[in-house]
């Protein structure tokens, strides 16, 4: 990853590369959404989200080449430094909600459990675990962006700079791996998940949280403004079926896939729509991650949908088969 620099002239296009469906190995697709980088305006490109006609995976094609990462993740990208100062009340609410969720995933971990957060950003979740988890647990993060690593370092969290494949850890290293809002950013989710499986102890778990491309917000806004597209940074967008297929491709067992509630994609979808159709700035700014009323409203809005299995995000818990099961195989 090159060091952080000023983003280059926004009028030159990104270098884009064509790809096949990472689950089916073919490009048998229908276009579903067309849009721009509404949130950061890192380039003038228009991007196309397509759906595989075989498995239903939604993905970006063509997508930015690997060496464009420095440009599509600008310095002020929100995952790099989600500080309480900037986000205030919303930060405190998120803090409490996430802590409860995280500890739920940690049930059954041994007292000396090792936990890895892949794509940890500024280390938000690791900090929460450090503050609320058991004293014997150890935490590590990995993120491929130097700015994220620096952000986590400020908070005293150990984060490796690079890709999970480059960690250099032996097999069976971790009891729990977190991939929270990470899998959708990856160019090769199958390869990364296979590596995660290798790093897990037999019976160890990986928790994947990602946008749900079968939710009502996707159905309403999927033609262009859906927040989950996060053009052009979300390369792959899953639903229950494709997430299970991804796990199967990495030889992981599905323990559970649920759709928790989340206001974020609703808020961003509406923001993108208003912004794109020229609504007054005052109105557009009502819809952001800093806007407590909007987040509260859409939290309540998405709650019943989540209970019906149609929530805005997906959470899959997958387990590496226990040693016995692997021997039996």
């Amino acid at each position: 990853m090159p060091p952080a620099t000023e983003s280059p002239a926004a009028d030159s296009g990104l270098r884009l590369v064509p790809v096949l469906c990472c689950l089916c190995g073919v490009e048998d697709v229908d276009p579903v959404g067309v849009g721009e980088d509404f949130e950061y305006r890192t380039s003038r490109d228009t991007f196309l989200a397509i759906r595989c006609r075989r498995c239903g995976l939604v993905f970006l094609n063509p997508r930015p080449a690997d060496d464009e990462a420095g440009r599509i993740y600008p310095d002020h990208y929100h995952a790099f430094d989600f500080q309480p100062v900037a986000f205030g009340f919303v930060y405190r609410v998120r803090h409490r909600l996430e802590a409860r969720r995280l500890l739920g995933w940690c049930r059954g971990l041994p007292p000396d459990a090792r936990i890895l957060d892949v794509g940890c950003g500024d280390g938000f979740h690791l900090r929460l675990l450090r503050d609320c988890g058991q004293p014997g647990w150890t935490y590590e993060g990995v993120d491929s962006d130097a700015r994220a690593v620096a952000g986590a370092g400020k908070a005293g969290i150990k984060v490796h700079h690079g890709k999970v494949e480059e960690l250099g850890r032996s097999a069976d290293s971790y009891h729990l791996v977190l991939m929270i809002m990470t899998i959708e950013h990856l160019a090769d989710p199958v390869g990364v998940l296979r590596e995660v499986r290798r790093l897990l102890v037999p019976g160890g778990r990986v928790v994947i949280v990602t946008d749900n491309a079968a939710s009502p917000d996707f159905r309403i806004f999927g033609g262009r403004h859906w927040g989950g597209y996060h053009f052009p940074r979300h390369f792959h967008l899953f639903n229950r079926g494709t997430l299970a297929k991804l796990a199967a491709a990495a030889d992981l067992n599905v323990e559970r896939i649920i759709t928790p509630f989340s206001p974020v994609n609703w808020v961003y979808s509406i923001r993108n729509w208003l912004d794109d159709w020229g609504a007054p700035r005052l109105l557009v700014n009502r819809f952001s991650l800093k806007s407590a009323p909007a987040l509260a409203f859409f939290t309540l809005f998405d709650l019943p949908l989540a209970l019906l299995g149609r929530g805005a995000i997906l959470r899959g818990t997958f387990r590496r088969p226990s040693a016995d099961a692997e021997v039996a195989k």
Partner: protein
Amino acid sequence: MNRSGKPVAIVGAGLAGLTAATMLRRHGILVRVFKAGKYIAGLARSERDADGFTYDFGAHFITNRLAAAVGCSTECRDMPRYGETVWLRGRTYSYPFGLMRSPRFVLSALATKAKALLRRRPPATAADWYRAQYGTKLANDVAIPITEAWSGAPAEELAASVGEKFATSLPRTLMLKAAARITGRTVAIGYCGTLPESPHVWHVYPEGGVGAICERLADEVREDIRTELPVEAILVENDHAVGVRVAGQVIEAAAVISTAPVHVLAKLVRGTDRLAPLARFRYRPMVFVNLRIAGPSGLPDVVNWTPGPDFPFFRLSDIGAGLPWLVPPGMSQVTADIGCQVGDEIWSMADEDLGRLCANKMERIVPKLSARYLGCRVMRTPLAYPVYRSEYEDDRRGFVAGTGVGGLLSVGRNGEFMHILMEDVFWRTRRKVLELIESLGGESS
């Protein structure tokens, strides 16, 4: 890699040929693209003159969706304006709502619909289709004269399928028009039949002409393109395409993809007579007269239909209004489309005479235009529109299902013998090629 290790031979390097080539390459299949001429881009080619005017074979504006799919969106600009009008008995009607407000047309359409309730039978010809769809008056005054002008055949001799392209849903058109009004974008309506229409899909155009799309696709397969090598024959054995003959040499191929006009394809194929019926299919030749005009053109909208015998042309397109960057500031460029036959009076007329003729006739719509007329550039093509004559309609319907020869695809506007535009060509070609890839066992993993 396909099992045989032989390449797929592609005849033609326009949008369809290059789309096919990239699709095959992405799936790990060898390709060889043969191009008779020196330049790629086929029908999508544009030319720019010393005065800063750009000329196309018709204005091939595309959509933001196609630009994104090909990865050339930053080279494109949004079309600032798009609309159609119909000139009728000295009046301009906006299309379609202006026509729908005329009591004469509305009453006739209602009467036709009422009659259809009593006696419903499928239309036998294009003329029947239009009358059943639009009512007798609108069909006779507008739809049929325009169709006859571009096809060169009486609407009674054309198949009803001519009209199918124009079948639209009124509520959807209203919704899209409203979205266009709100967003200020030229939302594509009736442009693409393969993909759903949407308020989020609008017209754009590459700055340097629409050939930019082909250039971007060609970047992926540059080393596989052989220019100035016309394919002399497509070789078929046991009803399966096995190769092509190029410059006297036989090149074995796992499959052959042709973008040639179908009556040419019929002559290229050796070793089967399955494609013989295609030799009868006809394309309408067309002359495009590009008029250079000082100041604004004075035309009511970007595309203006001129049905009936008053004009030699059936359509006037104000290029500068829709695509201002193709025309120098303070100037206009109007393309007059004239249907003709190869070698007839229009086809053979000197360029300057054609320009004068069009400028003079345009004065009925824009008074004193001739005084501002600066000159013209004329483009002639023997292959502008596929003509769906009833006499070969059964053969045409059979051809839609496939060539009947294993491993031989015919793709593109000319190759499919379909009145389709660029986004349709792109997606239809991809789907057909994908089926071919499966039959070749060429999926990579």
